[in-house]
């Protein structure tokens, strides 16, 4: 096969206009397919899992996020072998300014400032701001993107009106951090929430989520299992999952979209399969005479099939490569253009996706040329030679 490469390459560019059209049609379809696959991946598998994220887990009530666990779980979890640190990770919710304006929505969590940076080892913030976050009970920190969006500066006052928690909290912005995933979020000291709730509030000593950090990635499954096992027979059994999995469970409701995306991907693949089958069978017919010549020289049917498939493969891979490059550009554009859908920020043409798309392109090329290739290879020498195409 390799020794026929020059021949294959030259053959594939024989009719330049048609080859360019074939490559273009495959490229355009693969670009579309690539973007759709990247969207599918970004929405349902999230962005790439960073090493720092890979060691993080979320522990919550087995039944769901509305059920709570006793705060005492935190220390028990900390003693599980393989756990490096654990911290309360309490969704606060509430509203900022006019909640009807969707732009005013962002994530808000009560956390433990002294443990925060051990858990989020990939979050960066100047040392003096870290110190301020530790010291100031009403201090809060926000992601740099969020600060930019609202024009917040250090020292600004931010007020959140609670909904789950019946309190109104006023924070002082003491830190602006950067995180690799650029999640729009605000974190504040859990003690401030506890105090505001009052001594007899039933919400004071319960937790809806803990963020757990394992010592190393290999420990993660075992640690998660140990934690859940420990509370299995208690009144509040837990479910511990990787942070990545946890994030993704939020898009589970997009199930219809999932099917929709898959359907479009399938339709695009099928269409391009038909189009290229048509083009390739035409180009094979035109060269039936050459097939006769090659056979006269001693090429076997298999060798002929190999040559034709090889040629289709070259066209498909060329189209695929161009399409994937375009898709990568488009993904970049979309990623920087949208801010509303958090998950689409992970939109990217990863090497894995690119390879998959290239594989699909190759598959399309091979499948669509297989029937013409078999047909041509089975035509008798004399019939092929008589063909004047």
């Amino acid at each position, binding site marked *: 096969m390799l020794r026929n490469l020059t*021949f294959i390459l030259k053959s594939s560019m024989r009719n330049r206009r048609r080859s360019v059209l074939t490559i273009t049609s495959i490229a355009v379809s693969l670009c579309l397919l690539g973007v759709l696959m990247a969207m599918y991946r970004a929405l349902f598998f999230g962005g790439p899992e960073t090493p720092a994220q890979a060691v993080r887990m979320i522990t919550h009530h087995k039944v769901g996020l509305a059920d709570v666990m006793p705060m005492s779980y935190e220390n028990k979890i900390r003693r599980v072998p393989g756990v490096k640190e654990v911290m309360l990770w309490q969704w606060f919710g509430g509203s900022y300014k006019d909640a009807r304006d969707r732009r005013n929505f962002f994530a808000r969590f009560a956390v433990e400032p002294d443990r925060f940076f051990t858990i989020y080892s990939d979050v960066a913030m100047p040392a003096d701001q870290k110190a301020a976050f530790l010291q100031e009970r009403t201090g809060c920190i926000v992601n740099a993107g969020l600060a930019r969006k609202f024009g917040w500066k250090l020292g600004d006052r931010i007020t959140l009106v609670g909904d789950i928690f019946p309190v109104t909290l006023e924070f002082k912005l003491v830190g602006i951090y950067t995180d690799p995933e650029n999640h729009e979020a605000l974190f504040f000291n859990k003690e401030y929430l506890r105090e505001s709730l009052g001594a007899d509030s039933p919400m004071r000593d319960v937790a809806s989520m803990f963020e757990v950090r394992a010592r190393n990635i290999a420990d993660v499954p075992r640690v998660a299992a140990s934690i859940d096992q420990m509370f299995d027979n208690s009144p509040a059994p837990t479910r511990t999952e990787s942070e990545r999995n946890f994030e993704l469970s939020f898009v589970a409701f997009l199930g219809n979209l999932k099917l929709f995306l898959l359907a479009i991907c399938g339709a695009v693949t099928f269409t391009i399969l038909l189009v290229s089958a048509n083009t390739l069978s035409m180009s094979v017919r035109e060269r039936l005479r050459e097939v006769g010549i090659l056979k006269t020289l*001693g090429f076997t049917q298999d060798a002929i099939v190999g040559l034709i498939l090889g040629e289709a493969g070259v066209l498909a891979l060329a189209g695929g490569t161009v399409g994937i490059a375009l898709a990568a550009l488009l993904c970049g554009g979309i990623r920087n253009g949208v801010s509303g859908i958090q998950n689409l920020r992970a939109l990217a043409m990863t090497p894995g996706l690119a390879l998959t798309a290239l594989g699909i392109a190759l598959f399309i090329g091979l499948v669509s040329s297989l029937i013409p290739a078999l047909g041509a290879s089975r035509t008798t020498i004399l019939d092929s030679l008589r063909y004047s195409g």
Partner: protein
Amino acid sequence: MSDVVIETRKLTKEFVRDEFHVIALKDADLEVRRGDFVALMGPSGSGKSTLLHLIAAMDRPSSGEIRVLGQDLRALNDRAIAHWRNVHIGFIFQSFNLIPVLNAIENVELPLKLTHLKAKERMEHAETALTLVGLGDRLHHYPRQLSGGQEQRVAIARALVTDPDLILADEPTGNLDAGSAQEVLTMLSRLNKEFGKTVVMVTHDPHAASFAARVLHLEKGLLLPEGQSAEWSASQPAAS
């Protein structure tokens, strides 16, 4: 291997297509010896090409026996026949049949791709063959950049590059002007005399046939006994 290179007995080829039924070759008995240069002549439709195709194993006989280079061709399957043809046969067409996207040396190299030769050796062999046919200075020309005569010489180089025992040519000068035809015939003659190749050539042209040592005539699918020909033919039994 015996001295007999081609041996056929009652070789018959019928074409059956839908309603009609043509006997292209009937009970042909042919014997060609090593080193022979045979011209096959006869009117259009007399079965010359059919006989040549059967000898090249490009088609299978309807009945009768055919041994070429000691091999019973009916005993080989398609794959074995392809390989056999690659090794033993050099075929030259009337219409050259070069691959247009390949240049001269690549066209000549093509049959060597089926051998175990390395790329460098293949190129060397191809260059030698092209030099032999006088095209050492046209190695990288594409078919469309060559004259008909040059194209046919490239085709001859392609036919001889594998060093086959048998060279079969179907009206090799049919598409050429007199001068080019003369070159091609001289070349076939050289291959026969200097390199000892056995050559079977189909031709309409008595002048071309005059290069051959033996001239055989076909008439309506019948191979006439040697020396015998239909009245139309200005046959010359042998070149002097």
